[in-house]
């Protein structure tokens, strides 16, 4: 992972951060876009700087495994909140 590639990824991260922040502050109704930018930053950082791509698939499975259970927790808890009526 040459230095130039790392700097490129870093620039990408900063750009995504800038986009997310400015959009959310100027047009609050589009604030959800900031979350999309954040997701992009997270994946870019994990695969770029943390080199998750080079590790064995088992490690990658555990890295994203936690996400599966979080999605579970979110959907069922918020489903209860929204259908409380």
């Amino acid at each position, binding site marked *: 992972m040459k230095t130039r590639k*790392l700097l490129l990824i870093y620039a990408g991260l900063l750009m995504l951060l800038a986009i997310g*922040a400015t959009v959310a502050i100027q047009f609050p109704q589009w604030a*959800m876009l900031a979350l999309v930018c954040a997701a992009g930053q997270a994946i870019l*950082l994990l695969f770029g700087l943390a080199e998750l791509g080079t590790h064995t698939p088992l490690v990658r499975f555990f*890295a994203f495994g936690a*996400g599966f259970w979080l999605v579970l927790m979110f959907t069922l808890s918020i489903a209860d909140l929204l259908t409380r009526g």
Partner: protein
Amino acid sequence: MDVREQYLAEPYQTAAQQREATFLGMWVFLATEIMMFGGLFLVIYYYRLQHPVGVGEAVHHLHSILAAFNSALLLTGSLCMSLMVQASRLGDYRRVQRLLLLTAFFGLAFLAVKGFEYGWEYREGLLPGMGPESPLKEPAARLFMNIYLFATGLHAVHVTLGVTIILGMVVRIHFAHMKLPERAITLEMVGLYWHLIDVIWIVLYPSLYLVGRAV
């Protein structure tokens, strides 16, 4: 006998086996950190849905531009950490120490800006308990400020922990306890932990400062 074999921990037969076990162990630990902050994110988004008006008012009072600058600090820290890991693989002691100190600097800068932000909010009376009368009318806004304080505080504790570990690594290299590139894997683990702290802040920043601002 491959040079890396000498540093074989007790139960392992081959270095590759130990290397993969270390990565798997580290990522399982990082998964527990993600689950812990996951619980906190549920609290944040649960209350966003339950009290949109109150949360909107609280988010309106937060200083999101200052926090954006703070996020940039952490991203730079992550860059330095990756450069350090790359240097440690080449065994370049000087460069590794310099980059480690640079990362620690960015970590401390993040904490300093965070402290300044807390002070600013304290003077505005936003923080719970002590401080002047809170300008927030909605009780749900004060509830959100509580969550904001707890979430950023917990993250700050993790950043402090990360900075102390980095400084510990610098000390170990200084007294030549760590031979590179054989023991580079330890530095890679510290790098992973730092990247995780950064990922958590990347998601925490919009969840607290950006989404659902009062129009």
